[in-house]
């Protein structure tokens, strides 16, 4: 107890040291004066009194020293001393310090950046209570699974015993409703959700209530919840808003609640401003995959138990709804966070791996710098050892220096990392989930800070301890005998430093091979023939009013009038409308070939489905291989027709069996909205286009005239597949935007969104690849630069060390070229070692990035040859500089060195 008190008061004394010192002096001075006075009073002279007083007191300075010993904390004190000393050393060698700090900042900054994304995407808990217990319904296929299900499956699965609070919703692509006051129309992000949504996510409703069961049934009353933000923005936080009626997309909705501002759905996609009831039919037999669903695991139920039940349910479902599930399709559940993150996990793992290699190289570099300095400090350290510094104390001193360095590097790294990541994500958010619009949800929180602190301290320890141990172990005698310039770099130290450089080269070779594979894949992707031409094509989306969207004929009217008006604009070459653009999400549907016997199930196959206006193929310059394109005469009154692509023709019709003679029936009996779908005559076959993704081989696709789509399909698709206008001009596409928008406003009075060029659509479709490629390239270049600096540093230092030797050689008649050759050989030997290790390493590691590659093998021979050459050339340059300096050594100067 007393000990703790004493310790505590000593610790506290650290902060009041100056004050204590003053008080101590004051007290001692008073005491001596009192003594002096007493002696004087007894009749002694002033001088004698002073002498006696000091004598009686007993050595003022010794007393003070003992006093200090008692209020000081020896351990803390020496740490402070170390820190001050370390800081002084770092300031004294600014070149070394800046190089080390910047190197570390690059390494740590890169890791902070990637970790901040990993944190936002993978680690941060979802913004509602107990996210681990909320599971998403998954539809599984061979080797894949998607978080999407159909109304019929939802109704079947929601009754399973392992889950509760099952809600249906659509995340991300929520669609919009338009809200009109007077002449101003605004698009509002809408989320259609079932009644249980509010309970499942424990959505805070600050006023009013969520949907009742009745309101969530088909043809139920039109009610809406609005966001707190919208309430404040459009309704001035009117307290009487509940019960008011809003005109949304031309229909009256009664406001029944306000969702609190703390409900943060931003990581799911566009933040909803209005919530409407999903109104799913409880007896739905609709197998079209059009919604997402999630539930909460019942108390005591594990994820595995739920998965097991869903797996079994698939078998039962197959019996209850024969042919509703294609072969190999099943059900499962995943924790919602995992389901949302999807394949972003792989991307982030690869990038984390790459960036940690960069950090390793940075560490090796700084360790080398430190070793270099440690050798020139051998004498200093030896002297300190002679003066009695213990080995532990000296290692601690060196560690203090390196930790200080790495903390400085870490602080700078945080700035680098966060700033770099923000910039990167605002340019290209790469379709990463959970990062928010332009990556605004990627934040500096305690996890990121903790991570950076951890790796900073960790690297400081690692790269500091090794040189520390080495330096403090050195034998005192030779160090003291030598001249101060540190000839004493022992063979062992040089060996160790060479190994560090070899490791750096090996790691950078690995990274460079990885990144060049990414670059080659990216180039292959850009060079791939998509089958459609995108230059000078402008695209924009338009949501029609709910009333209009109920009937195909009314939408057709809008489409025809819009096309007529746009076509007459100057600069416009071709114009068309479509339900979805190539490379953007398109629905798929099964089809049956009329007159052909069925083998298994009610359909022969499946294909992507797009509804288009005439002129669509013209806009994208997609060639008609056989038959004809749609014309304006393919309207509601004409015989139903369909156009298929070559893939579909090849896959489902054998030679001699002409698809142009065939009729197909699409999705009837599969999805409810296709109940009125007629049999369609195939009238044309178009060339294949890469409409799913640039990296995917074209598959079967079918196109139907927009004017012939069943009403129910039009109504159902209005939200997810609004009208997308495509306009080919002979001028810069965006320059047409204003005029086109003006014309369309006159036609439909609806706002337009997602106005962009088709080139942009293409490049966003590969944004993830570009993101990966960019980061991998940055990391690889960093690695190469660091490795080059590393080998340059080693060689330059070695040349400096060998100056006397070189001088002697030159004096004895060696040629400058010979000297150069020796140095170059010494350096390049390390490079070759590095390559010999790095290439097989890469050979074994590239299989992990196979999934990201397109058009290039993970063991691409060109890459595996060019990268070692590139590294050799870079290293040659880095080695050549010190070699040249060595060969220019003046023998006289060199010998005088001694």
């Amino acid at each position, binding site marked *: 107890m007393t000990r703790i008190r004493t310790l505590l*008061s000593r610790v506290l004394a650290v902060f009041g040291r100056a004050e204590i010192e003053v008080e101590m002096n004051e007290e001692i001075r008073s005491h001596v*004066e*009192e003594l002096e006075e007493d002696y004087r009073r007894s009749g002694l002279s002033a001088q004698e009194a002073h002498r006696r007083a000091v004598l009686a007191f007993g*050595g003022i300075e*010794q007393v003070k020293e003992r006093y200090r010993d008692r209020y000081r904390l020896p351990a803390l004190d020496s740490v402070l001393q170390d820190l001050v000393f370390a800081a002084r050393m770092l300031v004294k060698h600014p070149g070394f310090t800046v190089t080390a700090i910047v190197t570390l900042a690059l390494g740590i900054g890169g890791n902070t950046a990637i970790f901040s994304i990993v944190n936002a995407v993978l680690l941060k808990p979802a913004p509602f209570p107990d996210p681990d217990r909320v599971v998403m319904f998954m539809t599984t296929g061979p080797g894949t699974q998607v978080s999407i299900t159909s109304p019929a499956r939802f109704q079947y699965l929601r009754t399973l015993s392992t889950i509760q609070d099952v809600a249906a919703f659509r995340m991300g692509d929520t669609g919009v409703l338009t809200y009109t006051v007077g002449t101003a129309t605004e698009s509002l992000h809408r989320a259609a959700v079932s009644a249980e949504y509010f309970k499942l996510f424990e959505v805070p409703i600050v006023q009013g209530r969520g949907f009742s069961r009745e309101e969530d049934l088909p043809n139920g009353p039109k009610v809406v919840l609005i966001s707190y933000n919208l309430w404040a923005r459009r309704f001035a936080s009117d307290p009487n808003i509940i019960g008011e009626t809003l005109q949304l997309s031309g229909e009256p909705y009664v406001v029944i609640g306000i969702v609190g501002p703390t409900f943060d759905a931003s990581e799911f996609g566009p933040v909803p401003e209005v919530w409407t009831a999903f109104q799913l039919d409880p007896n739905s037999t609709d197998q079209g995959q059009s919604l997402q669903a999630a539930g909460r695991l019942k108390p005591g139920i594990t994820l595995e138990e739920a998965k097991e039940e869903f797996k079994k349910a698939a078998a039962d479902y197959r019996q209850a709804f024969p042919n509703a599930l294609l072969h190999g399709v099943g059900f499962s559940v995943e924790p919602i966070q995992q389901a949302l993150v999807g394949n972003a996990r792989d991307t982030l793992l690869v990038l984390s791996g790459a960036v940690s290699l960069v950090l390793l190289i940075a560490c090796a570099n700084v360790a080398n710098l430190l070793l270099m300095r440690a050798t020139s400090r051998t004498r200093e350290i030896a002297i300190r050892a002679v003066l009695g510094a213990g080995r532990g104390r000296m290692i601690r001193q060196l560690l203090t220096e390196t930790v200080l360095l790495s903390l400085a590097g870490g602080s700078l790294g945080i700035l680098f990392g966060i700033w770099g990541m923000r910039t990167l994500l605002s340019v290209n958010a790469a379709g990463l989930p959970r990062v928010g619009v332009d990556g605004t949800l990627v934040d500096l929180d305690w996890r990121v800070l903790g991570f950076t602190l951890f790796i900073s301290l960790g690297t400081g320890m690692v790269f500091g301890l090794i040189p520390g141990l080495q330096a403090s172990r050195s034998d005192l005698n030779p160090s003291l005998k030598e001249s101060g310039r540190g000839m004493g770099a022992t063979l062992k130290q040089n060996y160790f430093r060479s190994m560090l450089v070899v490791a750096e080269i090996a790691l950078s070779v690995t990274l460079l091979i990885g990144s060049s594979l990414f670059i080659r894949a990216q180039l292959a992707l850009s060079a791939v023939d998509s089958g459609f031409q995108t230059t000078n094509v402008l695209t924009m989306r338009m949501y029609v009013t709910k009333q209009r969207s109920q009937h195909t004929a009314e939408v057709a009217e809008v489409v025809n009038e819009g096309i007529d008006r746009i076509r007459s604009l100057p600069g416009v070459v071709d114009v068309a409308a479509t339900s979805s653009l190539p490379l953007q999400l398109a629905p798929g549907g099964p089809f049956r070939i009329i007159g052909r016997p069925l083998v298994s199930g009610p359909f022969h196959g499946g294909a992507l489905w797009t509804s288009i206006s005439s002129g669509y193929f013209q806009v994208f310059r997609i060639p008609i291989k056989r038959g004809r394109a749609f014309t304006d005469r393919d309207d509601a009154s004409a015989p139903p027709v369909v156009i298929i692509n070559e893939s579909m023709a090849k896959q489902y019709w054998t030679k001699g069996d002409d698809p142009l003679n065939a009729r197909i029936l699409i999705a009837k009996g599969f999805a409810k909205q296709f109940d009125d779908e007629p049999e369609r005559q195939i009238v044309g076959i178009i060339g294949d286009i890469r409409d799913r993704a640039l990296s995917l081989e074209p598959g079967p696709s079918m196109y139907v005239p927009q004017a012939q789509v069943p009403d129910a399909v039009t109504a159902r698709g209005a939200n997810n597949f609004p009208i997308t206008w495509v306009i080919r001009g002979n001028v810069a596409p965006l320059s047409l935007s204003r005029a086109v928008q003006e014309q369309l406003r006159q036609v439909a009075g609806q706002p337009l969104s997602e106005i962009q060029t088709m080139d942009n659509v293409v490049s966003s479709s590969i944004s993830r690849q570009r993101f990966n490629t960019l980061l991998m390239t940055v990391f690889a270049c960093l690695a190469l630069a660091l490795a080059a600096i590393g080998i340059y540093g080693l060689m330059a230092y070695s040349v400096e060390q060998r100056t006397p030797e070189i001088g002697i050689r030159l004096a004895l008649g060696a040629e400058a070229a010979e000297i150069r050759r020796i140095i170059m050989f010494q350096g390049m030997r390390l490079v070759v070692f590095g390559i010999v290790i790095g290439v097989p390493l890469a050979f074994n590691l590239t299989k992990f990035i196979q999934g990201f590659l397109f058009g290039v093998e993970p063991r691409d021979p060109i890459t595996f040859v060019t990268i070692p050459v590139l590294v050799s050339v870079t290293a040659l340059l880095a080695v050549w500089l010190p070699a040249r300096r060595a060969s220019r050594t003046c023998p006289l100067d060199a010998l005088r060195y001694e």
Partner: protein
Amino acid sequence: MNDEKSDILNGTLALMTLRTIDVLGPIHGYAIARRIEQVSQGVLAMNQGTLYPMLLSLQQAGWIASKWGVSDTGRKVKFYSITKAGKKQLAAETENWHRISSVIARFADPKGNLS
């Protein structure tokens, strides 16, 4: 100075100092030194400076407290007084001292019977 010796001396000195402060406190350092010299009647000669590191230790242990004030001669000095914990410590130490000194006294007694 020999460390062991100083430890013993320190222990004794601490006890005397505490006792002095207990009886006369609040009291300043110089007065404590004079008092100890008086009581020991010059038998126990010490460097007066030794007092200060010890006063600091006693204070750190929480047995005494200090306060700045002005001495009879008008100098700025620290006045020390005993705390509750200090009184307890003093009682314990005094008892301890009595026990030990009685043992030593028995050893030291020339007519002492060691059996």
